[in-house]
């Protein structure tokens, strides 16, 4: 029972981390129609910037400084790179961000080296919150979850309750009309891109201390974030939250299940037959834990391609 609770909690927090990174991505996609391959690179940059800033201005200030720096990088990327290729079509924008992700990863390797760096939680935050199931539950995890929830609340309120939010939402929904009404839509785009990047940077700064910080961070998280965005619905913040929680918890719970499809068949008395066939049927759920999100993504795309909470597509 305790194991179940711990798994659920861990899954929820991992999901919240995924949300922090995918929130920006889904907003950017909803706004510009381009899937930003470099988004996970912003996550990585956040961690590395925080690592560089912590000895200079302290951990707390670095948590603010690193996302700001990444936001600046995001603005630069949008203004000088993406805007130029906007007229060439979606494929070009996509490929541009792909090339940018390469460049960012290589630049990080150039300056910081190939090995994981020693970016750690400060000792003041490194204690156990409570004890459950015979193990400590680190307080920092709760901080990560808190930051994510706080971020979600902030963005949601910003988008729905403020004037800026209304302008942003209209620019996402009908950019031409918003422009015709006199709003500076390119500025809005730049702002949303920068804020999205800053969110990913914040996620990196917070999570990089807990997990490892290495040049492959972007690759490792990138695909999962993409899955979250697709399952949740492109452009929907609420969908991203639900999808990331779902995927986080599924991945976490599956690790504990050592059963396979063959075991299911044995309930029906066909266990030996299933074992004999082997292959897919004898794969344990625990070893497939990181594969299941892709199956989920495929299912969603086939059944309801706009995602759990995206807009319905008429096709």
């Amino acid at each position, binding site marked *: 029972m305790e194991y179940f609770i*711990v798994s659920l909690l*861990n899954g929820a927090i991992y999901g919240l981390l995924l949300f922090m990174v995918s929130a920006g991505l889904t907003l950017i996609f909803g706004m510009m129609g381009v899937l930003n391959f470099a988004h996970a690179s912003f996550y990585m940059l956040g961690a590395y910037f925080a690592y560089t800033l912590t000895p200079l201005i302290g951990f707390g200030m670095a948590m603010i400084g690193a996302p700001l720096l990444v936001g600046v990088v995001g603005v630069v990327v949008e203004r000088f790179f993406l805007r130029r290729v906007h007229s060439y079509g979606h494929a070009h924008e996509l490929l541009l961000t792909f090339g940018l992700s390469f460049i960012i990863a290589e630049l990080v*390797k150039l300056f910081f080296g190939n090995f*994981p760096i020693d970016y750690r939680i400060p000792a003041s935050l490194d204690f156990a919150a409570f004890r459950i*199931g015979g*193990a400590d539950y680190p307080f920092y995890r709760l901080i990560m979850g808190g930051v994510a929830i706080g971020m979600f609340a902030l963005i949601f309120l910003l988008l729905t309750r403020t004037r800026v939010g209304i302008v942003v939402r209209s620019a996402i929904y009908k950019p031409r009309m918003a422009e015709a009404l006199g709003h500076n839509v390119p500025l809005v785009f730049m702002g949303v891109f920068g804020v999205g990047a800053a969110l990913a940077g914040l996620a990196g700064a917070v999570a990089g201390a807990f997990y490892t910080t290495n040049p492959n961070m972007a690759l490792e998280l990138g695909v999962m974030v993409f899955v979250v965005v697709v399952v949740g619905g492109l452009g929907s913040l609420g969908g991203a939250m639900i999808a990331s929680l779902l995927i986080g918890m599924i991945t976490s719970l599956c690790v504990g299940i050592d059963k396979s499809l063959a075991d299911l068949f044995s309930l029906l008395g066909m266990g030996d037959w299933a074992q004999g066939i082997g292959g897919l049927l004898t794969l344990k759920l625990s*070893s497939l*834990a990181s594969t299941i999100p892709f199956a989920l993504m495929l299912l969603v795309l086939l059944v309801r391609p706009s995602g759990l909470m995206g807009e319905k597509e008429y096709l």
Partner: protein
Amino acid sequence: MSASKFIRTVVVACTALLLGNVTSAAPLKVAVIEALSGPQASTGLSFRNATRYAIDRLNTAGGWNGEKIELIEYDNQGGPTGAADKLKAAIADGAQFIVSGSSSAVGGQLTDDIRKYNIRNPGKEVVLLNLGAEANELTGEKCHFHNFRFSSNAQIRIKALVGAMKKDGVIGSRVYSINQNYSWGQDTENAIVEYASVGGYKVVEKTLHDVNKIQDFSPYVSKIVAANVDTVITGNWSNDLLLLMKATKASGLKARFGTTFLDQPGNLANAGDAATGHYIAHLFNAEAGGKEGEQFAEDYKAKTGRYPAFIEGQAVQGILMFGEALKAVKPQGNNLNVNVWALELENTKFKTPMGELRMRAADHQALVPVVVSVVSNDAKYKVDGTALGFKPIMVLTGDQAATPVPAACKMQRPT
């Protein structure tokens, strides 16, 4: 001069230039095919640096046949496909010895490709010097005469680890095995089960997980906690080990860890003090080598700027042993006959700071000394800028550490 004649002359000149390089007597060429860029570059670069250092040492001592041994580097871009391409490039450039070690997948690809090339090109054979790929099959079902492994394998490491931990009285009776789900991880898991009686423990639970894909190991740590074990034995490396250590530290799990790759740079820095008391079975520890070990470490530091870490020590010893066998081989018409070298290597007894290194003729698995160390504040050589290091507690000679020749190895020797 007409246009066609001019073109013909140019073509002939170019061809002559290109072919010319091949016909002149060239120095002995050694190619290192490693991941020098991309995600796995850190380990690849370590192997490359160690090989460079060792070849430089051999050249300072005179090289071979009065000439310096030439080391050419190839980037396999992290995967077996890149390795296969670069192998062809290396052979085309005249390399007779191929050095590799960071990946069992790459090692498997290289050994198969070299075996096929040797069958198709008798008289121009190429040899693989495997400095670190430790999957069992490389000296098991994939063994062949022109393939030599200078490092250990899963059985050797686990046998040494388990023996030393039992002797220290820390292994307890309940053991958890967690490994990566591929050849090396599966070999390690099998070895952990195999040596249960030797270690006097019971394997309570075994887990295999995806390789270098998992970010959050806390579910696995929860499983370990629920299993209530004394010791956790793992063959994980790189991120998988790092994240496992971090998750363990975060959860306050009190089990002891027995590992094979804890000395990878970055691990101790990230694991911090929670790593104290964990064990590792590895092939080189300067502190265990006494005076020679210290001399070697200082020389390595003088030439490369750091003490030898992780696989660098074992890689250097492997190349130096290669050079030792070279000394006794006379050139045949200004060229090296690799078969003569190979037969010489099987009889070579090379003295390393860890003990004597010999090559077993049956499967070309080295009888390599193994050191079991524990993470402690008392270690002589500190690691990763922390106050911790690896303190050796037991050194097994090559023969003591050795495991039986695998039945799957059916080596065909040249006549």
